[in-house]
């Protein structure tokens, strides 16, 4: 018996998984001893498209499976029983980079078919909900509290306490909201969970609904995730059909309905009060708290709002008990956290690690180190609200308190690795540009302060910075932090403050020497071709503005008046003949 699973999450599809799937479908047509199914993201994005082949119980994980390789695997491995070692990621059930991981939230992603509810149930799905319904609401909340689970959306507030507040609010109508508006650039944890294991999120929402006394829930998912929305809709429909969502669940008196709301593209809607405004059909602008959503939330009813990863952890906690969860992690940060590893890293993808693991283990152990063996410079954690942690602090344990102490935040879980070719002033400018665009405009300091900070940073990257700029930035950053209503403004200065704290010399190089040490800032670099040029013409072809001239086997020249400093030639040259 041969089983083939193709990973068809967004990242897999982007790499061509649908074509691989179609190819395999044609190849195995009419063969009843070979089954083909789809699964979610297994987390090894750098080897997509990925397929898992199971032959008589032995599993083989293949990476880079495009149409050609799919046919090769079919002919050589399935038919002639000869594994193709150069494409294999592993040969057993445990992958090398999985060893340092502990998968609770991602346990089913890349394992089950997310479009078939029976597969979720077969691996113990909805057992947590069943268990919850057999105990009192107070006991459910006590279990979540004891587990030590903290909100995975970024703030890290105790989930059990949040539920308790909502439960204690007396009202005939309450709501549960799942915040799936994953907006941090460089973060895709929630997308993978929604695409690979949607039922785990539904189960978490229902347990929460039971505990706080709500019978209606909303999943607010960003419209940029069409596949996640499709899988959620399908999962809800299947659960309704099975009587798991709806009336008198598992024979109890508990009833619960779930709706999906598609976001319309506003980063600030990740903030809970803005998100609720958006569901109500208004501009998504944060409002003053208190009253907290637990007292007056969606349509002024008590509301509990949790992030995807938080809710996806709840079913496991109820099934396995609070102790099983709280023995993982550090004293204050319990359990596991999913991170999206991206940037200049070899093995980019999704990893789920126990809280407290050193950063070094994540980046160099699981992530395999820096691409092209360049020098590691920093890791940006927490997206636009986070900061840059320099190479010198690589031993920092990954938990809420230790990461916050560096000036960055654990945040939602984006980890973008930066190497020697990344300019830290440019990175700060990038994030401030992002928050400035996304500021809803309500608070003056966020609206205008971010704009002024962006102007200063832009001026520095253009070589027009002045000595006072650094102090002005710090001063303004602190004012924006103190005078903004919501998390967006309060954290927007973090990328600036951390880069100034750890990489002040780079700022000074831009301001004083008018140089960009990493060679990123366009206005401060010129590209030149050295004698090492062999005249291969590759750069000439790569140049979008036809600024390079030269004959075959002769030294090429860049016309600086035409050069737009895009760096295409630099990236193309195999002989290191282009300098900047």
């Amino acid at each position, binding site marked *: 018996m041969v089983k083939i699973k193709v990973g068809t999450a967004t990242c897999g599809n982007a790499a061509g998984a649908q074509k691989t799937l179609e190819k395999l479908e044609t190849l195995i047509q009419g063969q009843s001893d070979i089954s083909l199914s789809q699964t979610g993201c297994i987390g090894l994005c750098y080897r*997509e498209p990925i397929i898992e082949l199971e032959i008589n119980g032995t599993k083989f994980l293949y990476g880079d499976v495009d149409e050609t390789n799919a046919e090769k695997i079919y002919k050589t491995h399935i038919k002639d029983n000869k594994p193709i070692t150069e494409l294999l990621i592993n040969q057993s059930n445990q992958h090398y980079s999985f060893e340092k991981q502990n998968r609770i939230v991602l346990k089913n992603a890349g394992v089950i078919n997310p479009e078939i509810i029976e597969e979720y149930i077969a691996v113990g799905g909805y057992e947590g909900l069943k268990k919850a319904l057999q105990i009192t609401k107070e006991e459910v909340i006590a279990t979540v509290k004891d587990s030590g689970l903290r909100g995975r959306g970024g703030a890290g507030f105790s989930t059990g306490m949040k539920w308790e507040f909502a439960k204690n609010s007396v009202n005939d109508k309450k709501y549960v909201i799942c915040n799936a508006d994953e907006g941090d650039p460089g973060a895709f944890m929630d997308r993978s969970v929604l695409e690979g294991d949607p039922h785990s999120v539904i189960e978490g929402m229902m347990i929460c609904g039971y505990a706080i006394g709500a019978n209606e829930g909303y999943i607010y998912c960003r419209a940029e995730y069409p596949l996640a929305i499709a899988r959620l809709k399908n999962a809800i429909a299947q659960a309704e059909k099975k009587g798991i969502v709806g009336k008198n669940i598992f024979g109890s008196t508990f009833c619960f309905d779930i709706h999906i709301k598609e976001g*319309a593209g506003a980063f600030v809607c990740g903030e809970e009060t803005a998100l609720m405004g*958006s569901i109500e059909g*208004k501009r998504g602008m944060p409002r003053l708290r208190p009253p907290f959503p637990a007292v007056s939330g969606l349509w002024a009813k008590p509301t509990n709002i949790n992030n995807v990863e938080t809710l996806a952890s709840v079913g496991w906690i109820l099934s396995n008990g609070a102790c099983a969860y709280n023995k993982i992690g550090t004293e204050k940060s319990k359990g596991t956290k999913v991170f999206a590893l991206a940037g200049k890293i070899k093995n980019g993808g999704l990893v789920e690690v126990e809280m407290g693991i050193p950063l070094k283990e994540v980046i160099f152990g699981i992530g395999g180190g820096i691409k092209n063996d360049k020098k590691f410079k920093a890791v940006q954690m927490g997206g636009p609200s986070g900061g840059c942690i320099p190479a010198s602090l690589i031993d920092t344990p990954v938990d809420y308190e230790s990461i916050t102490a560096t000036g960055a935040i654990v945040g939602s879980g984006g980890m973008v690795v930066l190497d020697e070719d990344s300019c830290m002033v440019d990175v700060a400018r990038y994030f401030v540009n992002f928050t400035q665009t996304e500021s809803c405009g309500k608070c003056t300091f966020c609206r205008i302060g971010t704009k002024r900070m962006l102007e200063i940073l832009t001026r520095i990257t253009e070589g027009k910075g002045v000595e006072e700029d650094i102090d002005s930035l710090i001063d303004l950053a602190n004012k924006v932090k103190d005078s903004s209503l919501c998390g967006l403004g309060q954290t927007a200065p973090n990328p600036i403050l951390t880069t100034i704290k750890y990489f002040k010399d780079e700022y000074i190089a831009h301001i004083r020497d008018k140089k960009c040490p990493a060679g990123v800032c366009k206005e401060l670099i010129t590209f030149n071709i050295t004698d090492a040029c062999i005249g291969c013409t590759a750069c000439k072809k*790569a140049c979008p503005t036809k600024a390079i001239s030269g004959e075959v086997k002769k030294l090429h020249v860049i016309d600086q008046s035409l050069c737009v400093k895009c760096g295409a030639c630099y990236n193309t040259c195999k002989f290191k003949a282009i300098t900047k």
Partner: protein
Amino acid sequence: MQKKGIDLTVLNQLIGEYKDNKGALIPLLQKAQEHYGYLPELVMSEVAKALNMSSADVYGVATFYKQFRFNPMGKYVIKVCHGTACHVAGVNILDTMFDQVLKIKAGETTEDGLFTILSVACLGCCSLAPVIMINDETYGHLNTDKLVKIIDSYRAKEGK
């Protein structure tokens, strides 16, 4: 029923379907845009009437969200990812290339109505950076060479 060259039949159906839902405005605008490709002024004022809101309120909500567009789009909408991973992978090279090949910048549409470029925050395929999406098709690990070939393939499809 036709007003100013825009057929409102579908809109009226949608209004009938959504009008009585709580928080109907955004889903209604989303559905309307799905059909018309963008939000013409007339569509917004009709929605305002149906929901008993002022046109200004509807316009205020629509302009708050990036998803809503107020001009017709090209046949192929190119979303250029400007997420962190794409930024450090050098997506600005692609921007320069688009400028050269299509002669338009983000937010603009080519004269022949074939391409519109949109700059987006993050497409969530960070391991494939730099990434673009053309309608529903995603292209990863891009460089200038690949980009030109992709654009050419779309032009060839259209016989241009």
